[in-house]
């Protein structure tokens, strides 16, 4: 039976052919870049807006109340109203703050998350950047965000911001290790860093159960480490409202504050989608190796729905953490990483390498 998974490749190739037929190579490339850039910008903005609304509804659900449900059907236009309000707010300039760096910081944070979004595989063939070092590229690029945070804290010329930025810098740099190492286990299983290859290797089952225990351990470590990477949940002391007012973005107002806010939600989206991709198969439907009829039925559900469904589940999990647990202190946070997560990761990688060599996975 041929696969019914819709392949976007013919569609994108036809657009490419159309352009190269009518224009020169250089112009065609430029127009393609512009189209992709616009599509991603739109996607980024829209998803960012609706993630904020989703967070407020999930938070309200945890707290035994309703969230925003007045503005538009089910609160649909709430974030747009908030965005308009933020756009109209006065941008308060800080005297004696380093103006160039102060204005630059939000952009760096947005650029870092934007570059990572480009590498997400949404469906078969709908994959903007498909390097052969896919996952390595993503980890490298998302590390740029910490530069933006440190610059924001330093250039605000305020003690609160500086403390928040220093804490955040230490935290992000430490947890990047765990994120990278836990993703490495799947790379070893799949045998390649290219994201489309990783997804293809899950055609007979997702790595979370094909790789049994080590994959589950790697998944748990990845969820903890990535919640810390994105300054969310129990690891949000960089913006701990009850201690430091707002940490590194205390002095930002209006649209610049909106950038930080948006970048945080998009980072959460990126992290959730990579958890879904590496451990749960991305756009690959639920297949069980050997049960062909079952797999064929599963293929009828479009891969885009699979992808967004899995990502939504991961996002719900991350939000659940935030609204349940109290905050960790900075030294407890760093202890968790260096004394617990890192050794677990290293041992896990050894085990995975061994299992992969002996083919003891499903």
């Amino acid at each position, binding site marked *: 039976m041929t696969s019914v998974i819709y392949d976007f490749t013919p569609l994108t190739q036809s657009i490419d052919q159309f352009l190269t037929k009518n224009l020169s190579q250089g112009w065609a490339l430029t127009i393609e870049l512009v189209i992709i850039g616009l599509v991603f910008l739109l996607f980024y903005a829209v998803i960012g807006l609706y993630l904020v609304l989703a967070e407020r509804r999930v938070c309200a659900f945890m707290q*035994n109340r309703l969230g925003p449900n007045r503005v538009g059907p089910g609160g649909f236009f709430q974030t747009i109203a908030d965005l308009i309000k933020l756009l109209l707010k006065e941008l308060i300039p800080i005297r004696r703050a380093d103006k160039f760096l102060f204005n630059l910081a939000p952009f760096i944070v947005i650029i870092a998350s934007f570059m990572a979004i480009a590498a997400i595989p949404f469906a078969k063939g709908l994959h903007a950047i498909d390097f052969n070092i896919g996952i390595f590229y993503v980890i490298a690029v998302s590390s740029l965000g910490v530069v933006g945070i440190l610059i924001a804290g330093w250039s605000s010329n305020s*003690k609160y911001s500086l403390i928040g930025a220093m804490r955040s810098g230490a935290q992000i740099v430490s947890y990047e290790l765990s994120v990278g190492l836990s993703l490495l286990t799947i790379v070893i299983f799949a045998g390649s860093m290219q994201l489309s290859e990783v997804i293809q290797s899950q055609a007979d089952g997702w790595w979370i159960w094909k790789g049994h225990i080590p994959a589950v351990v790697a998944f748990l470590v990845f969820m903890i480490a990535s919640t810390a990477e994105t300054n969310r949940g*129990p690891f949000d002391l960089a913006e701990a409202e009850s201690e430091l007012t707002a940490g590194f973005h205390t002095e930002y107002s209006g649209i610049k504050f909106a950038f930080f806010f948006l970048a945080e939600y998009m980072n959460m989206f990126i992290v959730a989608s990579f958890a879904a991709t590496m451990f749960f198969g991305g756009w690959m439907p639920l297949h069980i190796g050997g049960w062909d009829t079952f797999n064929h039925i599963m293929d009828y559900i479009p891969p885009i729905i699979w992808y967004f469904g899995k990502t939504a589940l991961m996002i719900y999990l991350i939000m659940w953490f935030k609204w*349940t647990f109290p*905050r960790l202190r900075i030294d407890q946070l760093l202890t968790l990483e260096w004394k617990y997560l890192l050794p677990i990761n290293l041992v896990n990688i050894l085990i995975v390498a061994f299992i992969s060599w002996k083919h003891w996975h499903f």
Partner: protein
Amino acid sequence: MTEEIKEILFTEHEEYMINMGPQHPSTHGVLRFEVFLKGEVVTRLVPHCGYIHRGIEKMCEKDTYPQIIHLTDRMDYFSAHMNNEAVCLCVENALQVEVPERVKYIRTILAELGRLASHQLWWCAFGMDLGALTTFFYGLRDREKILDIFEESFGSRLLHSFITPGGLMHDVHPNFQNRIKEFIKYFRKKLPEYDQLLTGNIIFQNRTKGIGQLSKEDAIAYGITGPSGRGSGFSCDIRKKYPYSAYPYVQFEEKLSEVGDTFSRYKLRIDEMWESMKIIEQLVDNIPEGDYTAKMKAVLRLPEGEYFQKVETARGELGVYIVSDGNKYPYRIKFRTPNFSNLFIMNKLASGGKIADLVAISGSLDLIIPDIDR
């Protein structure tokens, strides 16, 4: 490089000062902490109070005794009933007036309900300070039920001025007993939820165990009473040592803890909530019928002399000291408030810890700022 930059780069690390100013999400009132830090470690802490000093003691010198009740409500507003009770007991003992049994029972029930409501709000705010934002809603949801009972009987949710010298201002609503019984049944099921959400959580335990150690000698020397003092082993429950109102008729335990850290103070308050429910259950079925007030003169004049009355509020020992010269106004009235003494141990407890610990410690001491400043 310039001299200025050289100085910044090469001088030794000094301590720097951060102001947790009068407006701050976690000081719960207008209190200013001047915190001196070296990196992330607190070296010294200077509290500045007085932002809400209203001169209650001076105002009381020109008010008659029934009028003072309205001012005492506003000191520690979460223990409003207990503050009123303190002044009323002082006046009644001075005038040698015996209040009816019904009054004693109702006063004690109201005091314990107030204690429950106060501890519920403390729990919400403590969780929120530490980052578990959901606790705020769970605690308030249950507190609303108590406030509804108050509103039905007295018309107001927070500041009632209901307990007056001689008895009560008027009789309670006929529904009073039934609603309290319903509430106790409801809350007994909900209080274990508090433990599930916060007490057993390992992140919470790491944030609070071993933090802010207070020894018993320090608690006695600094005068730390209430759950904060009992958490260090200082047995200071006025309800047991000098019982008043209906406390001699009930049986309950005074919970003590030998460990003096934040977690033990937290656990103690949760245990006190269980004990309060026990006390209310013993009293609510047996409220005797009778008058709601004793016969008092229209104008109260205390005989010349000095009178002192101690009462256990939700936060510690409230003492009312009245000096009377035979007039209808007190010559001098002094409120020995628990939060005033509890505040000044912050320097000792928070030094050496981190900023995050400061927030946890001040939450566990449960400070109400208007009580400090009066």
